[in-house]
């Protein structure tokens, strides 16, 4: 076996530190964006691009008009965002800086993760430090990817903040030198099972944030406050948050199901049984059932909306528990956190 490359390992730690500093800048920029948006007044003119306007109209000999039957009643004149998460023309220089610096941070972060893997000659997810740093990278990557499809910059503060916390937790709570894997982890299933698990956890992170904001926004509306008020001004309506959370949770659930399957196949190869109710298996199962419950709740009257959001939040709390508490404090077959 090739010995570990300690010099590369040191570079990796340096990259992680630089990434954390970069993310700090991004965090401050996103926070400034939220604060600034409280006071900004929207120009009453140009409403945002509406799909029907883009598509309909008189073209040649055919005249076409299209209208979504769903009510557009929520279009307050002061609101900056509509129900399909379309934003009105608004200058948000701070958010632009946040995204740009965030991308830079992700590049540096990725360099840190890759050098860590190269230093150990294996995938960089074999102990708690590596789960945390690689997981943080995926959270950031999923967030930036989602920005390509939706303007979710209102989540920037939360995401960069969380990624910072994860990087710090990795460095302070779980510092682990670069090392070779113990025999139990020497399997290609490590690459498949753990990477998909971390990816789905990253997606659940995003939906957690959306669900929390959905609850906050619902509460704000119930209290009768104008939806334009406060730090939540940039946050879209509960309905649109819920819809996006559902779509992401559906993807997360598929990936989590795969995690469970791949884990079972690996467990069969390693221990001779595909399911044995080991602590980690129990919690992976609990998470799966909670998100399955979430998907069912969305289709059950009286359970959609706020209750479903709570399930999404509980599911994520279980993910955190499974990762931070079960890995470290619970005895079981998965006790190779490297601590």
């Amino acid at each position, binding site marked *: *076996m090739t010995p*570990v490359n300690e010099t590369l390992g040191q570079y990796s730690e340096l990259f992680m530190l630089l990434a954390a500093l970069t993310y700090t800048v991004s965090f401050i920029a996103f926070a400034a964006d939220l604060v600034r948006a409280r006071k900004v007044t929207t120009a009453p003119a140009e409403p945002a691009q509406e*799909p*029907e306007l883009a*598509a*309909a109209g008189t*073209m*040649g*000999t*055919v*005249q*076409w*008009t*299209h*209208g*979504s*039957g*769903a009510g557009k009643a929520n279009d307050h004149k002061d609101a900056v965002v509509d129900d*399909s998460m379309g934003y009105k023309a608004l200058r948000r220089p701070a958010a632009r800086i946040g995204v740009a610096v965030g991308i830079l941070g992700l590049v540096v972060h990725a360099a840190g993760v890759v050098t860590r893997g190269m230093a150990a000659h294996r995938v960089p997810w074999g102990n708690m430090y590596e789960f945390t740093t690689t997981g943080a990278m995926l959270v950031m990557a999923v967030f930036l990817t989602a920005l390509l499809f939706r303007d979710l910059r209102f989540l920037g503060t939360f995401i960069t903040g969380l990624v910072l916390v994860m990087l710090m937790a990795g460095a302070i709570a779980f510092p682990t*030198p670069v*090392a*070779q894997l*113990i*025999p*139990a982890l*020497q*399997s290609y299933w490590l690459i498949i099972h753990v990477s998909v698990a971390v990816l789905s956890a990253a997606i659940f992170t995003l939906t957690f944030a959306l669900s929390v904001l959905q609850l906050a926004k619902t509460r704000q509306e119930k209290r009768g406050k104008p939806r334009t008020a406060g730090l939540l001004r940039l946050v879209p309506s509960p309905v649109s948050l819920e*819809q996006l959370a*559902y*779509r992401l949770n*559906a*993807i997360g*659930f*598929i990936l989590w199901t795969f995690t469970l*399957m791949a884990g*079972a196949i*690996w467990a*069969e190869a*390693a*221990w*001779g*049984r*595909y*399911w044995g*109710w080991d602590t980690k298996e*129990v*919690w992976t199962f*609990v998470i799966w*059932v909670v998100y399955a*419950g979430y*998907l*069912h*709740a*969305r*289709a*059950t*009257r009286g*359970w959609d909306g706020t209750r479903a959001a709570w*399930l999404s939040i509980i599911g994520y709390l279980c993910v955190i528990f499974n990762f931070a508490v*079960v890995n470290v404090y619970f005895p079981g077959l998965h006790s190779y956190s490297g601590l």
Partner: protein
Amino acid sequence: MTTTKPPSGKTSLEDVALPRLGPAGMLRWAWRQLTSMKTALQLLLLLAVAAVPGSLFPQRPANPAVVTQYIQDNPGTGPWLDRFQLFDVYSSVWFSAIYLLLFISLIGCVIPRAVQHWKALRSQPPRTPRRLSRLPEYGTMTVAAGTALTPDRAIEDAARILRQRGYRVQLGDTGTDLPSVAAERGYLKEAGNLVFHTAMIGVLVSIAVGGMFGYRGQKLIIEGEGFTNAEPGYDSFFPGTSFNPGALVPFSLTLNNFDVTFDRNPASYGNPIDFTADMTVQDSPSDAPRQETLRVNEPIGFGGTNVYLIGNGYAPEITVRDGEGNIALQGPVASLPTDATYNSTIVIKAPDARPDQLGFVGFFLPTAMVDENGVAFGSDPDPYNPQLNLNSYTGDLGLDDGNPVSVYQLDTTELTQLNGRDLPDGGIVLGAYQTYELPDGKGSITFEGLKRYVALDIVYDPGKAGALVFTTLALLGLIITLTTARRRVWIRAGQHEDGRTMIEYGLLARGEDHSLAKEAIRIGSALTAHWNKANDQNRQATP
């Protein structure tokens, strides 16, 4: 099931009021309650909650010794927890009740829906509703007068475009002034949903098959020794409820050599990085022996029965001579590692020592060091300075009354202690190749050599393949159902008095669908583009 909400108003009344019906009616009511979406959801969430205690309390199937210890340590709460089966959560009455109810509810839900879907697959999309403008997505088109587009033509075009987009189409009201087309797509959404839920039942059945006809056994093999797959050869054996001894594949194996490599990098010193067991195996007594390498994560298979490397340790070779000078015990004795440095506990029993039986309890240290207090400790997992630290006992070892006792335990309460730290003769400290003479001429013990052993799990699970097939089906079904949208489209055309052709369309989603508006725009664009093009061509053809 993750699809449409039931038609509104229908179930809510039944939910509230208990109908005054006879026993049959009550049963029907209970069945409808059980198979309702709300009950299924509640059972699902209950299942998640019920699974949690199994991670908080030690579980008997995984760790019976720890459970016994837990009950001893908590005499107040322990027996109560046991009464509520909290040490056997996953086979407890309440946990089973939840998942069995859930599966009954699931079956009660899947069967009628499968029938319904089968019918839907063979029927045509429903007729065009009278008022399309009430649908969530609605639009109109007006084609200028003077083009060749008649309402019938328009509907034919629309049907063709919808068919190209994957819709199943049905022309309606043909021959009237207002012909229309009804279209539906995304039948796979419900199919995927049904496959997922049916596969869940398949997974449960596969698990049951494994539990009935399979077996699992443990065997510890010392270097140079072998094993054949027959029940008495096992250290412990757990047959399934309907296990047939004929299922034992007649393989045999011999452990030639077991190699362990430890990490010598200063930062991670002493971590194991490789376990390799060199085996000679035979599929059956008549087959030729062959060489195999057994590693963690790489089991050896014998026609459905797999052998797994689960643990390993040291087996010091011991000779015990008794008070009469005869050898009472000779051979390797397995020690149980207690930590990553392979500091191990060891129990040696010589029940045939005469005049008195001899027993030894203590530690084996692969690399012994002595700290400032004179206490020995192990400093390395490799055997650089192997040492046995033992107390010795004499008396009835408890093997002669016929009750099976663990070879790794010795009850010393009824025994007379000969050696120990607090006794005048002190404890026994044996380095390699050393012999210790026991006090009072009771005999001697010699540390003759050292071997490694492997702990194997040997498992036959006939439900394994089924579980894999059904979970794969479940995943495929899940992907299909969550990524497909089921939609209906209706388009109607008519002629205005002034000669313009009017077209209206409406879309309806069945189940969760966030891109219905996009689909409406796409269909609208396709139709507009098509008719514009057609009209242009017509105009050029007839100037």
